[in-house]
């Protein structure tokens, strides 16, 4: 895949008027496959030394042209050098300890072959007659059908739409309203409330222990407890304890209410 890359203007403006033809690669594996093909190598028996040298030359070229080199390319550079160094070591070096793969290249070769498989699959599906590219469907709504539309069909919306709607909303409003929305790394009270509500949809009663069984950390227990208190305060749940120091149980304070069940004067408040 050849692309026409513009060299971004440098501070000194020297390269400003330059542009070069340079093969553009969709990642380090793509570049490696290209090198293997160019050198007519067998993918199962690549010369790490040659490939590594050419790979690094390419990266250096990109750098000299002030093209941004993605971190992924650098990670691969490090891996190649590591493999190369391991191949320099005497073979009996690895006799102790856990059995290693004999060929230091094995993992890389496997990745390359697997990548090649998906790369080809991508080309195959991309070569199909695509809707909106090679073939087209009718875009004009049928007037007969349009006249009879109503809103009672199944709902069609994706999870991504929902989250995107939320994201757009957040962009509109000040951050302080949402300090707790972009959940911290840790388990938040809001998460825990969601979890409890979710559980209560499935079962009538829930035990405190069920909530902390998987993760009995101090943080989790406190968060869970606070979430329960909050739900209790909101009168969403009721809490029971049969014996002193016994299990804490809780049940929904109100059953699943149907929309018809809303009192007329209370209709959405």
């Amino acid at each position, binding site marked *: 895949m050849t692309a026409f890359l513009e060299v971004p203007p440098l501070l000194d403006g020297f390269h400003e008027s330059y542009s070069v033809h340079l093969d553009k690669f969709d990642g380090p594996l793509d570049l490696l496959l290209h090198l293997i093909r160019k050198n007519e190598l067998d993918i199962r028996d690549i010369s790490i030394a040659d490939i590594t040298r050419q790979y690094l030359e390419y990266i250096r070229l990109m750098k000299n042209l002030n093209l941004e080199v993605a971190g992924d390319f650098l990670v691969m550079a490090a891996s190649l050098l590591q493999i*190369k160094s391991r191949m320099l070591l005497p073979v009996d070096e690895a006799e102790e300890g856990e059995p290693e793969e004999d060929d230091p290249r094995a993992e890389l070769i496997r990745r390359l072959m697997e990548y090649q498989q998906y790369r080809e699959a991508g080309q195959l599906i991309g070569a199909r007659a695509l809707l909106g590219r090679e073939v087209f469907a009718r875009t004009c709504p049928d007037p007969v*059908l349009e006249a*009879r*539309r109503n809103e009672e069909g199944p709902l069609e919306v994706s999870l991504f739409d929902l*989250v995107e709607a939320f*994201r757009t909303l*957040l962009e509109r409003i000040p951050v302080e309203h949402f300090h707790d929305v972009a959940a911290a790394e840790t388990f938040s009270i809001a998460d825990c409330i969601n979890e409890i*509500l979710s559980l209560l949809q499935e079962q009538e009663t829930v035990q405190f222990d069920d909530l902390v069984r998987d993760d009995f950390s101090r943080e989790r227990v406190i968060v869970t407890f606070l979430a329960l208190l909050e739900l209790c*305060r909101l009168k969403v749940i009721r809490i029971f304890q049969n014996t002193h120091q016994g299990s804490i149980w809780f049940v929904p304070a109100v059953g699943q209410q149907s929309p018809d069940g809303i009192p007329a004067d209370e209709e959405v408040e």
Partner: protein
Amino acid sequence: MPMLPAIIESIIFAADSPLSLDRLSEILPEFGHDEIKAAIAELCVFHEARPGGLVLVEVAGGWQFRTRPGFQQYVVRQAKVKASKFSQSSLETLAIVAYRQPVTRAEVEHLRGVDCGGVLKSLLEKRLVRILGKKDIPGRPLIYGTSREFLEVFGLKDLKSLPTLKEILALDDLPQYERQEELPLENRADFPEEMSLPFDVPSTL
């Protein structure tokens, strides 16, 4: 090269509005106006004569394929199952309820800045949102949360499976190392072109 009638057929079929003879002539400069006119006439006769479900008709000054009159009774049978699309306001409201539950109408309205009574009511009717209870503050407002149907519509196992905003935002982020790895410009300038790179171990391999 395909036949002109077939070409015109495909263009008219894919168009989102009726196409006039002049417009078709513009689109197909390699064909004469009269040729195009004749091809359209041929297509009209063909579709009218064959016992099919479509006809080519002239509407609003242009040509368009329509279902054959008399077939409406069949065509409209699918109308009632059209998937209902969500308006931006229902999506936003639903998102707030999903991410902030248990939540009151006042809280939803505070966030959206507009009245949400109608939207909430329609979400309740669609059973995506349910009433969890009443808040213990003056006025005892209703508290809303999402329903089991909500999970079903979005194909979620439970509320925990709802992607967090952070996870979606993370799709735009570059990986950590990519951000920190900006090469200082001075180094590049200092870097002698001909100098062999440290890793360029003589190819003894």
